[in-house]
């Protein structure tokens, strides 16, 4: 237990802030109050997950962080030149092969051809897609598509990674495998991550910190540091402490709905 507690403290004290929300609020032009007074930071080496009921403004939070949507009040401080965004859907271009899809972000940002080829090869290896480079998205399974989408962002070597429910559409087994792989990626690549999900277990398994958001207008109503180390073995999901945290978050979420 002592070991894990030390591991928890390390990223919080060690990393520099990569994303900072301060009293952030968002009211859409049609009057919908999506986000209300949200403040938190995500630092290097931190994996922060936001869970909350559907339509509570979780995704809006990511869209604001990435600059796709403008917030209406408060501060959003982030370096958008070093930002990876993984969408709900793999959003691969169907007319491009895996190789060319992985290169896309780098290509659009003007990285020279030889360099982006090299980086793409690295990324493809990181997400275990070696041997599938010449396939088209149509020929890939849902899990492989998501891996390809991950690789596309990894090519940019981002300092902050935004994940918008990336594994929501996958089956349970594939999702858990990708969770395991994402943990490894997170440990080796040392980015900061802001992750959105519906799944409490996924949130607890991946994160160093879990935030619970209320129904609209979205407010942070729960904040759980996750007391597990950097290494997250697959069986962690079946341990008592894991279940306990999930239970607490679940109670919070019930309040969020009512």
């Amino acid at each position, binding site marked *: 237990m002592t070991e894990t507690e030390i591991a928890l403290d390390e990223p919080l004290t060690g990393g520099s802030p990569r994303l900072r929300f301060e009293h952030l609020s968002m009211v859409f032009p049609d009057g919908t109050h999506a986000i209300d007074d949200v403040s938190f930071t995500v630092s290097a080496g931190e994996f922060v997950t936001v869970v909350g009921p559907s339509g509570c403004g979780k995704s809006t939070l990511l869209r604001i962080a990435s600059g796709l949507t403008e917030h209406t009040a408060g501060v959003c401080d982030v370096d958008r030149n070093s930002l990876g965004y993984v969408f709900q859907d793999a959003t691969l271009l169907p*007319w491009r092969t895996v190789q060319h899809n992985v290169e896309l972000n780098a290509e*659009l*940002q003007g990285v020279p051809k030889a360099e982006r080829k090299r980086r793409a090869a690295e990324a493809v290896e990181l997400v275990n897609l070696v041997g599938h480079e010449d396939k088209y998205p*149509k020929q890939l399974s849902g899990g492989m598509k998501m891996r390809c989408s991950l690789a596309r962002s990894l090519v940019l070597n981002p300092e902050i990674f935004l994940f918008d429910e990336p594994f929501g559409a996958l089956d349970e087994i594939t999702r858990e495998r990708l969770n395991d792989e994402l943990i490894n990626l997170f440990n080796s690549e040392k980015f900061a991550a802001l992750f959105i999900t519906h799944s409490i277990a996924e949130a607890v398994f991946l994160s160093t910190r879990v935030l619970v958001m209320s129904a609209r207008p979205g407010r942070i109503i729960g904040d759980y540091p996750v007391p597990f180390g950097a290494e997250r073995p697959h069986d962690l999901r079946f341990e008592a402490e894991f279940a306990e945290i999930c239970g607490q978050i679940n109670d919070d979420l019930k309040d969020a709905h009512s």
Partner: protein
Amino acid sequence: MTTLDDAPQEIAQEAMATPAAVGVNVPVHQPRSSTKHHIRNLIPPLITFGIFIGVWYLYSWSRFDNAAQRRNALPYPHTVITDGFLPLWDEANGIRPILGYMWPTVKVTLIGLTISIVLGVTIAVVMNLSRGMERALFPYAVILQTVPILAITPLLTQLFGDEIGVRLVVVVLIAIFPVITNTLFGLQSTDRLHHDLFTLNHVSRWTRLRKLELPSALPATMAGIRIASGGAVIGAIVADFFFNQGEKGIGYYIRNKQQRAANRPEMFAATITASMFGVVMFLIVGAITARAIRNWHESAAKQT
């Protein structure tokens, strides 16, 4: 049309050799014996063709009492072959003059279709720039389609003369509309998340168009070109009926043969040849489409 699309289907099957992709309506064992598969696919259209020829004979036989009358109005199909298509190698009769008159028509069709594609895609791209542009241009694209071209032939002659220029104008007037509407539909159907992805990379409008919108509109554009290709053939033939100068095409030949009843078999032979050209155009565009999108678009795998 089953056999006509055989080639694209074959291509799609080779590209996607997995059982799931081989097709909803094709039994699993068929791709292995592709000759047998081809023959089986030929049977339904051949039956249709047989019925058509049968009805032609029957009508021609029952409608006319004597052979001469019949030959000069609706000759039997075999008469069309013997007196229309044959002889094979004669300067003045049979298939050779027909093919000779076909060539200018082919040229006008291909040039006109090319202009329609380039111009149509450009107009669709401009319309896609903003709602205002679309509102400003779309009504006139519709009017272009609905204006009775034959009624304004005097005006067209005034403006464009009566040689190849005016023929091209007629072809473009007919062929451009499906290219515009389909391309515009394709451009506007571009995935919203794909747009977000490009926005996150701070791309220029031009890059977005070139690397996202145009490729994503390609299947729709190709469908539009397919429709346009048939219209282009008809436009090229019909133009010959009304504009008499310059290189004369198959429409001119058909109209000439219409004048004298004795030439009825040649008229039918020329008409059949012209429509065969339309079929070939349709097939070529279909094959190009299948090749262009076979790896990624659903329609390529399901084509029958």
